[in-house]
């Protein structure tokens, strides 16, 4: 093979075959897909993202959420596992509650970019909009370990603002104990000596707050009692401060709530 033309033509043809087969054929096959309407009176599905949700998609992209979260629900026949009786079963995604059906190409016709994902260090988000409420999402985005202590998801506390309360606590304020809000992004706990100092200062107030909601008394002279009171105090809200979502946090949340890809029945998704 001493001739450049042979190498050039051969590389051209082999690569052109792959370009044609793996890129252009699917492009032609899928380019004309239209939204679905079971009945002319229904809203077509899917619909393009709009407004805040569209802004939120950019934040989802910017923070690289894709690198741990996929957006695709796989078929009931995908994968295998064995139940307690030793029978082989398939299809974990739907059984995990990640969607009502598998996702198909039509679910993505308005996605730019289409973030199918390649990694599940976190759960699938194709249908996350129907799984959690807005307030849950905010707290979870602020610090995921407030709900799941095993979580390795980053805290996105920088999308939230900690501010002094002027007048009433805002309706939008995150409902979170001081354990999470004193040092946003981290979990905060006082050391033994700090806790002693706090008890010396405000012990009576904390105790009366505790007694208002509890059936039994706590003996703060014992180490266990002190620890129990601290655990209670950490779950109470910080006085005078609140955590509120920024526009970016609201946008990201709007995007997550708009992710409902595996709900509306599509004829081609039937198995």
């Amino acid at each position, binding site marked *: *093979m*001493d*001739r*450049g033309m042979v*190498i050039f033509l051969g590389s*051209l043809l*082999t*690569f052109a075959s*792959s*370009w044609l*087969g*793996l890129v252009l054929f*699917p*492009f032609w096959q*899928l380019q004309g*897909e239209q939204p679905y309407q079971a009945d002319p009176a229904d809203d077509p599905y899917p619909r393009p993202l709009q407004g805040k949700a569209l802004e939120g998609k950019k934040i*989802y*992209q*910017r*923070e*690289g*959420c*894709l*690198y*741990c979260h996929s957006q*695709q629900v*796989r078929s009931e026949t*995908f*994968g*295998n*596992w*064995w139940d307690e009786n030793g029978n082989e079963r398939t299809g*974990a995604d739907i059984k*995990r509650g990640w969607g009502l059906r598998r*996702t*198909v*190409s039509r*679910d*993505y*016709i*308005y*996605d730019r*970019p*289409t973030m*199918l994902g*390649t*990694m*599940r*260090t976190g759960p699938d988000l194709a249908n996350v909009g129907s799984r959690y409420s807005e307030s849950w999402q905010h707290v979870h985005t602020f610090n995921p370990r407030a709900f*799941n202590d*095993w*979580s*390795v*998801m*980053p*805290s*996105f*506390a*920088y999308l939230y603002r900690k501010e002094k309360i002027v007048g009433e606590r805002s309706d939008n304020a995150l409902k979170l104990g001081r354990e999470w809000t004193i040092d946003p*992004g981290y979990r905060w706990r006082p050391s033994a000596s700090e806790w002693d100092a706090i008890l010396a200062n405000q012990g009576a107030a904390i105790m009366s707050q505790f007694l208002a909601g509890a059936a039994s008394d706590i003996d703060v002279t014992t180490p266990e009692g002190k620890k129990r009171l601290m655990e209670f105090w950490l779950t109470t809200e910080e006085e005078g401060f609140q955590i509120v979502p920024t526009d970016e946090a609201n946008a990201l949340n709007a995007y997550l709530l708009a992710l409902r890809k595996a709900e509306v029945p599509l004829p081609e998704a039937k198995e």
Partner: protein
Amino acid sequence: MAAATQTPDYDRQRAAAERAAIDASCRGPVLYFSASAVFWLLIGSVLAIIASTKMHSPYFLTGTPELTFGRMRMAHLQAVALGWSSMATMAASLWMMCRLARAELIYPKILLASATLWNVGTFLAVFGIIFGGGQSVEWLDAPQYAPPFFIAGLGIVSAWVAAVFRRRREPHVYVTQWYILAAVFWFPWLYTVAVMMIFWSPATGVVQPIVNWWFNHNFLGLWLTPVAVGTAYYIIPKVIGRPIHSYYLSITGFWALALFYSWAGMHHLIGGPVPAWLVTASVVGSMMMFIPVIAVAINHHMTMLGHFHRAKYSPALRFTVFGAITYTWVSFQGAIESLKSFSEVAHFTHYTVAHAHLGAYGFVAMIFFGLFYYMIPRLTGREWASASLIRVHFWTAAVGITIYFVGLSIGGWWQGRMLNDPNVPFGNIITYLKPYFLTRTIAGILMTTGHLAFATLFIMNLAGWGKKRVGGPTYFVEPLKTTNSPNAKN
């Protein structure tokens, strides 16, 4: 090449003068590409350690948007794929093409502009992502202002490689040249099509991830792999002074790679909302990869047979042979991994991450390390200043990638099994994975230590700290005179 031992002294001197002239013409651009590659390797390593640490210790450096996991992860990939691997690939392509064509590099100053374009592009990609411009398109995360720099820089390199080839004085075209020519032709096409169909004029819905995986897999398969395989084809015979085992196998290996590797990649969409025939086509492509891989494996390893002891002395050879052996292993693994029943478990897990690193690091990076140990002294006229630092580099890299691969392969496999069983709560999977995430950080720190040793050696060499190149190269230990091949010097 064995024939060279019989050449008269006069011809040997003329050949040496010719090589010296070629190296002199390459010096500026190839050293610039190489130094940039090493720089981005260090940046990429730091980003990798930060991202990896965050996977088991989520409070590490939290609270700063610029240092959040997703951005570190995207920036790492850009730094090592476009900064380190691609710039090393271009340095390798330019130098080996000149050497094998026996032609000097023309207008080398324009290539300095090309390397600058790549550096600007990589800088924009890495820091653009860190400051909030990431695209979340795997391997193509660079903000949209970066690709034009890459395409322009790449265009120049491709044109120059072709020009050198056209001006060749050596009528025989060696296997390394086939791989380089094909790679510099394929990659601009691949990259431009991918950027166009995903960003400039986005294709509908799931066509984007299809193009995305076509690009990702071919980035390794048709850009890094051919040049790295070609490098092994160059270094092994050069250092041990023996011709390649079989010319015909090298032809088979080349054409089978061109045809089949380009068809792989879609198995990364297994179970996804894409036409099923696509995944099947890629599984076929992947299985057919056994042909070129076995051909190349026989050729590389049979050439080495009986000469493995030379890896005790020669750093260039030791790194290259490590890479060549890894290539065989990672390709066998990759072909089997594409099978449906295997992929159903491994997909969406860290098993795939382990596989990708075995390919991009254990194979490609190790071979380029080997090439650098061979090539840089010939360009600077200085030998490496310290055999101990090279030894540190080799062992940290080799042990590091082994720990990385073994840890994440085991963890990732069981992650996949548990993901497929809906009765396993999600939290249990993460708790199970955490120790394996820790092994990755340890491996990353080891490899980064090696990169620091490598960068130190590189800077010392550029600064003129090594001994002048008059005798043989810097060996790990001085070989016995009887085993020293007369060709090993140049």
